């Protein structure tokens, strides 16, 4: 483990039980043996389509859901085997911002109570200092102190997401998993929240795992990007490297599919063959092979490893030498 890695996961696998009906119970493998390091102070974007396992990975590495196997190290300490009690002090260091600010805030608690809950749980400060801290946090995320007395239903979507951010920041975390934090917001509000997150990141020295499918946001804020497909990371690179020289056939079609906000350039829409994958019945070998125009027999036979192409670029494709 390099000294600059804040979080490191090794061959992490997560599965879910599925199909409680008749017949043999099935397991859905959402995350399949993922290795990933997140460097201290970076923004790592995790991109991929629905069902690729990005949310599951984000939740499993915070130990919000159990993993089947693999190790998670936070700042050098293995947290994958810790029990709930010993994990509690570390929970303060790792927080999450959720996608849906309408579902992730308790409607029966005031904004002040929501933001202060983490302080209560971790017994940080006394009553008066918690009240002051809540006011400070609300100011930090651009809300008025009077918002502390309101309930979530009285706030707009953007304001709710600010509350979600204040709640995550309350316990002074070092690491935050932001799971699609702007996807449910309107365009103009999205820009406000992204700008706020980046300001806070710089000011507080945060490390962020930013889960999203919005590639414009990725290019703007991420230092590195990991592309997931069917539970595996298939390409990992510095942001500009990935956008300029995507190597995996899937990454390429993903980038080409983003509609350009420029009507003068209208390339034909890229044609992706095949159906989106079904995570409960993945193909053998490379998960992408039955949609890939470059697939050969070898792709069905073995699972491509995430190999290093250069110091800043890793790729899981058996045929990359022939393709490029």
């Amino acid at each position, binding site marked *: 483990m390099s000294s600059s890695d804040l979080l490191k996961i090794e061959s992490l696998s997560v599965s879910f039980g599925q199909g409680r009906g008749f017949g043999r119970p099935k397991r859905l493998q959402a995350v399949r043996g993922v290795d990933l390091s997140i460097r201290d102070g970076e923004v790592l974007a995790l991109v991929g389509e629905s069902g690729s396992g990005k949310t599951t990975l984000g939740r499993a590495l915070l130990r919000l859901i159990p993993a089947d196997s693999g190790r998670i190290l936070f700042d050098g300490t293995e947290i994958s085997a810790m029990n709930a009690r010993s994990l509690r002090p570390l929970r303060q260091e790792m927080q999450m911002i959720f996608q849906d600010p309408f579902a992730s805030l308790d409607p029966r608690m005031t904004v002040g109570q929501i933001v202060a809950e983490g302080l209560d749980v971790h017994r940080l400060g006394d009553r008066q200092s918690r009240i002051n801290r809540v006011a400070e946090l609300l100011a930090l995320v651009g809300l008025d102190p009077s918002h502390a007395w309101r309930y979530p239903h009285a706030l707009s979507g953007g304001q709710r997401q600010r509350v979600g951010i204040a709640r995550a920041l309350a316990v002074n975390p070092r690491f935050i998993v932001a799971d699609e934090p702007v996807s449910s917001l309107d*365009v103009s509000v999205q820009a406000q929240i992204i700008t706020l997150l980046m300001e806070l990141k710089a000011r507080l020295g945060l490390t962020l795992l930013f889960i999203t499918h919005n590639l414009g946001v990725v290019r703007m804020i991420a230092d590195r990007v990991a592309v997931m497909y069917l539970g595996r990371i298939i390409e990992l690179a510095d942001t500009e490297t990935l956008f*300029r020289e995507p190597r995996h056939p899937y990454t390429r079609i993903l980038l080409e599919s983003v509609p350009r906000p420029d009507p003068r350039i209208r390339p034909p*829409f890229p044609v992706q063959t095949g159906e989106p994958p079904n995570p409960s019945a993945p193909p053998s070998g490379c998960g992408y092979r039955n949609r890939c125009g470059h697939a050969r027999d070898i792709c069905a036979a073995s699972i491509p490893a995430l190999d290093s192409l250069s110091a800043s670029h890793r790729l899981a494709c058996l045929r990359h030498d022939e393709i490029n």
Partner: protein
Amino acid sequence: MTEQPVIEVHDLRVSLGTDDGNIEAVAGISFRVREGETLALVGESGAGKSVTSLAIMRLLQAGEGSKAVGIGGRILFRDRDAGTIDLLGLQPEAMRRMRGHDLAMIFQEPMTCLNPVMCVGDQIAEAVLAHEKVSSRTAMTRAIDMLRLVGIPDPASRSRVFPHELSGGMRQRVMIAMALACQPRLLIADEPTTALDVTVQAQVLDLIRRLQREFSMGVLFITHDLGVVAQIADRVAVMYAGRIVEEAPVEDLFAHPLHPYTRGLLASVPDATQAGNIVQPIPGSMPALSHLPQGCSFQPRCHAALAGRCEREAPPAIAAGCRSVHCWLHAA
């Protein structure tokens, strides 16, 4: 200009009764969509985009949170035999005959309009049988042809599956097949790709573009995604708080946005194709329609608002060539 307008909307007003009192969800908007043309209606939630589309389809009903509905203005639809009909003056039965035949609509969530207990071929055939005097065998042949046209592999056997057996993108295709089965003159697409993954979105946009050309339909495309607008629209109308604040050909709008709100929207979208992109958010959020500010609705968020002007009087429509803008900054 040879293309005839398929639909002309004049001073459309829709008021809804809500718990907060009556609100004007659409406050006098006018636009037209020509044959073979795509007009994108852009705006954020609550701008009135969907209410506009439902008003055109005459699908706004009293009830369900909206206590009273008042619709004013004119919605002129040019018929196949070149007669012009005001949709707002039609009897419900006459309107029912036009829906699905002359005007069709597709939605963000296909399961809201697909019947979960009916196989997809029967659903499309039913749409055909509702409007045309054909045998059920002919209708089913048409249904299978439509499934093929929208790119569903092995359409004959897929026509017998139920919606839940299909992926999200395939359901979207089935919904498009059903909407287009009678070759409507106007297709209203209300955020049809918002719930889809980006690679699937590209396929569905490609499909809509191709079918539009084939049928020379007018398309009213409702979206909040400016990337999609740039790729699919011929003209764009930007809505804010129930009004169209700017309308222009798509190249002009992106190259020279006139309204401060349009500029702010364009500056809010991070471009995945540009390195070092930044966004400049618009401060604040759209006002509730029940508490609209005096004068221009955008004025409290506008960095260029003219003191003594914008907060007093609603801005006039200023037309220049083939575009228009509602803003005091552009008044002579």
